[in-house]
């Protein structure tokens, strides 16, 4: 029973990170229909850039802010440099394009920061707290809180603001949105910047727990992508649900089966779920169109 509780805590913590990464995927996908395979790299950059700022002696929260701004700029540049010129490419090309970007960023990161892991201090003192038979670190609580905060923020942004309305318009019908004076290009740019921010925040939150290295983004990106797919591409609640499911699957897989097989367990489960629901748990079924 105590094992079960401990695995649940670990699963929810890591699942929250996957959820944030998945929300990054959804943010970009819903507006541009692009899957950004470099989403995990944003997370990695969040941790690494924070490490550098702290290294040159900046204040913790100033570094925090500057890191977000830096990653945000990278997201913006990435969209301008590679997404704008390839508008209307097919999904296969877009996947390859963003995989290319991810490999590039990862390579550059390894040239800058080397191959070792870096350490970033926790937000607050990180003495583990005991809750019944399980222990939990304050940073884990922070991670979950940040995930919830982001969900709330996105909800307000998308549902309650003008820019959110424009966002929704673009994802539902880009043509009509253009007619209404909303620029899909600007929205595409905005979605990359926003999802870079989400990535950076995820990176900052997880850095004290998992000690990032240049290649941290690879698996995080894949897990985030899986979470987004599992939940049903384009669905934000689906992304959160998908993230938590994968986090829990992994944690229980590692605990009850073998830590080496945790990825295999998680991905096998994903394949099985996709078999049953080919468009994800909360994904909409393709509706046939009349009149061809």
């Amino acid at each position: 029973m105590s094992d079960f509780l401990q695995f649940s805590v670990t699963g929810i913590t890591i699942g929250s990170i996957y959820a944030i990464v998945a929300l990054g995927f959804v943010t970009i996908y819903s507006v541009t229909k692009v899957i950004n395979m470099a989403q995990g790299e944003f997370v990695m950059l969040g941790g690494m850039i924070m490490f550098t700022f702290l290294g040159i002696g900046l204040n913790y929260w100033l570094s925090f802010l500057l890191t977000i701004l830096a990653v945000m700029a990278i997201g913006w540049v990435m969209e301008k440099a590679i997404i704008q010129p390839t508008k209307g490419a097919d999904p296969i090309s877009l996947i390859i394009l963003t995989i290319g970007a991810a490999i590039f960023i990862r390579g550059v990161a390894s040239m800058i920061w080397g191959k070792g892991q870096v350490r970033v201090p926790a937000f607050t003192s990180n003495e583990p707290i005991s809750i019944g038979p399980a222990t939990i670190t304050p940073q884990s609580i922070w991670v979950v809180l940040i995930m919830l905060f982001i969900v709330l923020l996105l909800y307000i942004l998308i549902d309650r603001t003008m820019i959110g309305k424009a966002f929704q318009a673009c994802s539902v019908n880009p043509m009509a949105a253009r007619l209404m004076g909303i620029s899909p290009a600007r929205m595409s740019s905005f979605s990359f910047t926003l999802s870079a921010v989400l990535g950076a925040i995820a990176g900052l939150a997880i850095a004290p727990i998992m000690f990032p290295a240049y290649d941290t983004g690879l698996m995080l990106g894949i897990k985030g992508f899986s979470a987004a797919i599992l939940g049903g591409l384009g669905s934000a609640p689906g992304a959160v649900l998908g993230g938590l499911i994968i986090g829990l699957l992994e944690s229980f897989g590692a605990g009850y089966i073998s830590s080496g097989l945790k990825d295999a367990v998680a991905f096998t489960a994903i394949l099985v779920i996709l078999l049953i629901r080919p468009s994800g748990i909360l994904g909409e079924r393709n509706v046939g169109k009349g009149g061809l």
Partner: protein
Amino acid sequence: MLEVKNVTKTFGGVVANKDVSFSFEEGQIVGLIGPNGAGKSTMFNMISAIFPPSEGEIIFRKQRIDKMPTNAMAPLGISRTFQNLQVFKNMTVVENVMVGRHIRTKTGTLRAALKLPGTKKEEVSAYDKAMEYIQFVGLQDLYDHLAGNLALGKLRLLELARALATEPKLLLLDEIAAGLNHKETKEMSNLIEKIRNNGTTVFVVEHDMDLVMSICDKIIVLDQGEKIAEGTPREIQSNQRVITAYLGAEVEKNAQ
């Protein structure tokens, strides 16, 4: 030959076809007409099994086809053209028509990979047969051109040749004369009559009234998803409901 029984199709909440029934016999040219948005294309897409009806049955030569996959239609003897032109634009004219010979040939992946005896012979015969259909529609001068480079009138003929290459018993033509000039339309109607005389039943959706009235043996009229009339061209021309439906549409158009 074809029997449509109480077919209804809805998309989301929108009703495209409502309780439509009709049937016709072999050896005719049958027309399906109606004002814009009458549900003609939807009906065609259901008969060619692009999507299934929400309710009702479609029976072709005593076989229920409404739940079959699209690719089962050609082997049964139903072939079609597309209003919005679905040619294989990165392939040549003759290659396009050779895809029409797909179901009449049988070289599979393994046989093709190893070039087993007989594959070459089949390839040559598919080629020759495709050329016959190209000749039939009069595209012989363009047979090695890329389909993507053809003009609209030629593309309509290409779609016709490709559909004929499957050797259909029932040929569905979805606005085959749309965008054609007077001379091309005339040639098209000659071709359609020739196809009927060769023993293929032809079912056309058409906007061009002259074309429909001159070649059809029977006409079915849809309006707002429902069948409002059925009969010979002469009967249809004097049918009050048809006239109202079309006039209504005209009046609306003028008002806009």
